């Protein structure tokens, strides 16, 4: 038996995430892993190591937590976290935070300093002030990139988890004045079709499609399967 440690930065990674972003994420994970290994070698208890590492990840905007948190449909931050100590069978959780710099440390205080296991929204914010944890202005958590992602999610009318949408000419944006979506590559029934599509997702019969390698007029009612970031949007449908 010996020590072991694992960290994650979220699942559902965008398949066309730029290489520099992938490297940035790996560098942060490696930094956190080294921090955790050093603590374990110094015999720091597991419960303190998990809090230490998640605090580190919350402080860095690379991943969706703390600073760099995803935004709600109102453009607000509502952070949540939980922690559990398997040895003492104790746990703590918080939800709906918008000013607490490190939600995981408040979850730890719920576990250690309250008779409950879960505090949310106003109650959690009041408890944070009673416990004297670091409070910051909500704008600390909101990044320009996340505002952009929220706009993209709204225009794609979807709810997305844990991936970053890089700038891409394929991103589905707002329809233009003619009711046509911006130029995107679309697959109608698995074939590459014209680069314009009506707002309701149907292909205009004026447009041409490429089927079996031949250019032909789109058939009436042919549905378009949008692409987002270079892959069929169906990949993102679950979100």
């Amino acid at each position, binding site marked *: *038996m*010996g*020590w*072991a*440690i*694992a*960290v*994650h*930065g*979220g*699942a*559902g*990674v*965008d*398949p066309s*995430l730029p290489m520099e972003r992938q490297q940035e*994420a*790996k560098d942060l994970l490696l930094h*956190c*892993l080294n921090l*955790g*290994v050093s603590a*374990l070698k110094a015999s720091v*208890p*597991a*419960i303190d*190591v*998990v*809090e230490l*590492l998640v605090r580190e990840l*919350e402080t860095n905007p690379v*991943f*969706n*937590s703390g600073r760099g948190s*995803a935004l*709600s*449909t*109102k453009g*607000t931050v*509502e*952070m*949540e*976290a939980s*922690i*559990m100590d*398997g*040895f003492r069978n104790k*746990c703590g*959780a*918080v939800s*709906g935070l918008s000013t607490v710099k490190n939600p995981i440390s408040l*979850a730890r205080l719920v576990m250690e300093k309250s008779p409950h296991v*879960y505090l949310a929204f106003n109650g959690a914010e009041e408890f944070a002030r009673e416990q004297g944890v670091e409070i910051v202005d909500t704008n600390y958590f909101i990044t320009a990139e996340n505002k952009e992602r*929220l706009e993209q999610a709204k225009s794609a009318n*979807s*709810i*997305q*988890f844990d991936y970053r949408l890089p700038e891409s000419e394929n991103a589905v944006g707002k329809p233009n004045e003619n009711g046509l979506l911006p130029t995107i590559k679309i697959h109608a029934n698995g074939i590459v079709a014209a680069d314009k599509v009506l707002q309701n997702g149907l292909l205009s019969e004026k447009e041409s499609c490429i089927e079996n390698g031949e250019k032909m007029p789109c058939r009436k009612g042919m549905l378009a399967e949008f692409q987002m970031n270079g892959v069929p949007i169906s990949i993102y449908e*679950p*979100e």
Partner: protein
Amino acid sequence: TVGCVVVDSEGHCASATSTGGLINKMSGRIGDSPIIGAGTYANGVCAVSATGEGEAIIRATVARDVAALMEYKGLSLQESVDFVINKRLEDGKGGLIAVSSNGEVAAGFNTLGMFRACATEEGYFEVGIWQ
């Protein structure tokens, strides 16, 4: 979402998970990360932290299921993780990291990728994104 699972040299396990939630979520929406037994769980046998689409992870009680498979069916950590990811969690919905009290580490996901890093005292080491 971010998470960390640790077993220390005493064999004590702990888990922590933190998130901003889903982009464009409804106000007041709660995901799996603060739900003990769904996004986070630890007992005397293992520690688990999950990530992905919270609604699916809650429905599958992902973190507790990994621990229960080890506790009641005697599966290994990796077998439990694989079963929950492949048989319980809806496809394309997320992933998890886990450690066991005897110093093992495991990760599993059914999305396109998961940002993760693992290390053990025996020398195992991994930093990855894709399958």
